[in-house]
C-alpha cells in the first residue's frame, strides 16, 4: 500500500496527453489486392483445373509436334485394296506387329486413322484459335464503340439487322462455294460476319455499364472515348470476355464438323475432323473405329476448352476473390 502511494503521486502525473496522429487511422492493413494474382489463386484452388490443363497441354503437344514425324498421307495405301477398312487388330496384324500408326485401324482407303486424327486435330485447333482471335478482337473493339456511341449504334443496328437475318450456314456455304474450300478461305468465311454477333452481344454489355457514375466522372475530367473504353469499360468485362471465349473456341471446331457433315467443309487436301466424321458416317455400323475415333477426339477437345474457359471465367469474376 505504501509502496503504491509512492509511485502514484497525483492525477496530473498519472494522466498525460498522447499525440493523436491523424494519418495512423488512415492506414489500410489489408494485404494488397492484385486482380490477376487473385484470378490465378482462385483458378488453381480447383484441383480439377490442373488436370484439365495437363490434358490440354498433352493435346496441344501431340497435335502440333507429332504431325512433323507422323506424316499423314490419306492415299499412301490406295493401290492396295487389302488395307481398306481394317480394324485395329487386323491392321496391326497386317502391317507386322504393333505400331502407333495402326493402333486405331485403317480407313476406307487404307489410310491411318491415328495419323489422320492427329493432323486433323491440329487443323481444328488452329482454325478455332485463329477464328476466335480475329472475331473476338474485332467484335470487342467494334462492340465497345457500338455500345458507347449512340450515333454508331443507329448505323450498326441497321447493318446487324440485315446480316443477322441471313442464315449463317447459308452465308458460309455461299462464301465457301465462291472462294474455295482451302483453310484460309474457310477462316475468311467464318470471320467475315462472325465478329458482328460478338460485337452485338458486347454492345449490350457495354450499354449496361456505360452510364455508371465513374464514366460520367471521366467525362467531367475530359477523358477521351478510347481511354474510357480501355480503362472504364473493358476491365469490367474481363469475365464476360473470358466466358465468351470459352463458348467461341469450341464452337468453331463444332462449326467445322457441322459444315463438313453437310458437305461444305474444308477440301480433301486439308485433313479435318469434320471430313473424317463425314466420310465415316456410312461405315458407322460396319467399321465403328473409323467413326468413333474422330468423334471422341473432337468431343474431348471441345469439352476441355469449354470447361477450362468456364472455370477461368469464374475465377476472373472479382466477386469470387473474397
Amino acid at each position, binding site marked *: 500500500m505504501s509502496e503504491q502511494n509512492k509511485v502514484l503521486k497525483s492525477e496530473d502525473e498519472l494522466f498525460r496527453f498522447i499525440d493523436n496522429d*491523424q*494519418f495512423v487511422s*488512415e*492506414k*489500410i492493413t*489489408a494485404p*494488397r*489486392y492484385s*486482380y490477376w494474382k487473385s484470378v490465378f489463386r482462385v483458378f488453381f484452388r480447383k484441383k480439377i483445373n490442373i488436370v484439365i490443363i495437363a490434358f490440354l497441354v498433352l493435346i496441344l503437344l501431340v497435335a502440333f509436334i507429332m504431325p512433323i514425324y507422323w506424316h499423314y498421307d490419306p492415299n499412301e495405301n490406295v493401290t492396295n485394296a487389302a488395307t481398306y477398312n481394317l480394324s485395329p487388330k487386323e491392321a496391326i496384324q497386317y502391317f507386322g506387329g504393333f505400331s502407333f500408326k495402326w493402333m486405331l485401324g485403317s480407313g476406307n482407303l487404307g489410310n491411318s486413322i491415328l495419323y489422320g486424327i492427329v493432323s486433323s486435330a491440329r487443323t481444328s485447333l488452329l482454325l478455332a484459335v485463329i477464328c476466335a482471335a480475329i472475331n473476338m478482337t474485332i467484335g470487342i473493339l467494334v462492340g465497345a464503340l457500338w455500345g458507347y456511341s449512340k450515333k454508331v449504334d443507329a448505323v450498326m443496328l441497321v447493318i446487324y439487322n440485315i446480316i443477322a437475318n441471313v442464315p449463317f450456314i447459308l452465308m458460309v456455304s455461299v462464301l465457301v462455294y465462291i472462294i474455295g474450300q482451302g483453310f484460309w478461305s474457310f477462316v475468311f468465311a467464318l470471320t467475315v460476319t462472325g465478329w458482328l454477333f460478338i460485337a452485338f452481344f458486347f454492345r449490350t454489355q457495354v450499354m449496361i455499364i456505360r452510364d*455508371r*457514375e*465513374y464514366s*460520367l*466522372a*471521366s*467525362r*467531367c*475530367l*475530359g*477523358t*477521351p472515348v478510347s*481511354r474510357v473504353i480501355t*480503362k*472504364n469499360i473493358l*476491365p*469490367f468485362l474481363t469475365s464476360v470476355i473470358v466466358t465468351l471465349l470459352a463458348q467461341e473456341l469450341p464452337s468453331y471446331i463444332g462449326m467445322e464438323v457441322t459444315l463438313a457433315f453437310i458437305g461444305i467443309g474444308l477440301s480433301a487436301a486439308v485433313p479435318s475432323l469434320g471430313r473424317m466424321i463425314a466420310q465415316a458416317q456410312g461405315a458407322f455400323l460396319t467399321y465403328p473405329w473409323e467413326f468413333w475415333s474422330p468423334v471422341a477426339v473432337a468431343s474431348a477437345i471441345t469439352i476441355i476448352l469449354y470447361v477450362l474457359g468456364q472455370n477461368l471465367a469464374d475465377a476472373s469474376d472479382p466477386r469470387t476473390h473474397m
Partner: protein
Amino acid sequence: MESNEKKVVLSVRNLDVVFGRGKKAFKAIDNVSFDIYEGETLSLVGESGSGKTTIGRAIVRINPCSAGEIYYKGKKISGKLSRKDDRDVIRKIQMIFQDPAASLNERATIEYIISEGLYNFHLYKDEKDRIAKIEKVVRDVGLLQEHLTRYPHEFSGGQRQRVGLARSIVMEPEFIVADEPISALDVSIRAQVLNLLKKFQVERGLTYLFIAHDLSIVRFISDRIVVIYKGRIMEIAPTEELFQYPLHPYTKSLISAIPIPDPIIEKEKKLFVYSPSMHDYSVEKPELVDLGNGHMVFGSPSEIEKYKKIRFAGQN
C-alpha cells in the same frame, strides 16, 4: 451583403432541361436563372426530384440544356463549343459526385484515378512532376502515399469521397459543382469532408455550387441559398437572411423540417406542410422578384406585397 459589386463567375439564364420527347417529355428544370459570384458558395436546396442535380449536371454539361444559356466568366458554355473552349471549360469546372462508391472506377488504382485529369490535359512536366503533384494532393486531403497503389474498394466511404475530391482539386479548377458530396457519408465523417471543402476554398479561392437537401449543413457551408421546388426557383437569399426571414411557404416548410437535437422540443414542434395549392396563380402570373438585400422570391404581385410586408415589418 451587397452582391452587385462582386464579380459574377457563372450565370445561368432562363435554363430549361427537358427529358424525353413529344408526349413523354418531362420538364425537369423550368426557366431557372441565377448568378454565382467569385469565391462564394451557392447552395441549391430542395426535395429529391426537384432538379438540383440536373442543374449541376447541366453546368458540367452532362445534361444538355433544352433552352436558355449558361455563361462562365461571360463566355457561353452551353450548346456547342469549339474544341479549345470545351477543353478549357472542362478543366476549370469540376464536379464532385454524390456516391463515392459509384463514382470511382473500381478496377483502377487510386494513382490512376487521381492522375486521370492530369493525363488528359497533360498538366505535368514529366513523370516526376506528376507523381509529386498527386502525392501532394493526396496529403492535402489527408490520405497516405501508400494508398496510391490501392483500389477504391479497400477504402472507407469518407476516404473514397476524399479521393474524389483530390481528383477534382488536382486539376486546379476555379469552379466546383459539389453534388451532395456528403449525403452518402457517415455522419461522423461529414464534417471532415466539409472542412476540406472549406479549406480548399480559402486556400485556392474556389467557387462552389453546393447541392444538398440538408439545411443544417447548407447553413454551415454556404453564402447564399437557392431554394428549388419542381424545377423552379422559389427563393434566393443570403444564408442568414433566408433562415431569419423565410418568405416563401416552401422555404418555411423546409426550415421547419430541420430536426432539433432536443427530444422534447422536437416532439412538440409543429411542422409546416407546403402544398402548391396554397397559391392562386389563375389570375396573376407569378415571377421571381427582388425584394432587396439580395433576397428574391417567386410569387404573384399580391403575394410579393404580402412577403414585403412580412420581411420589412418593424423596419422603416
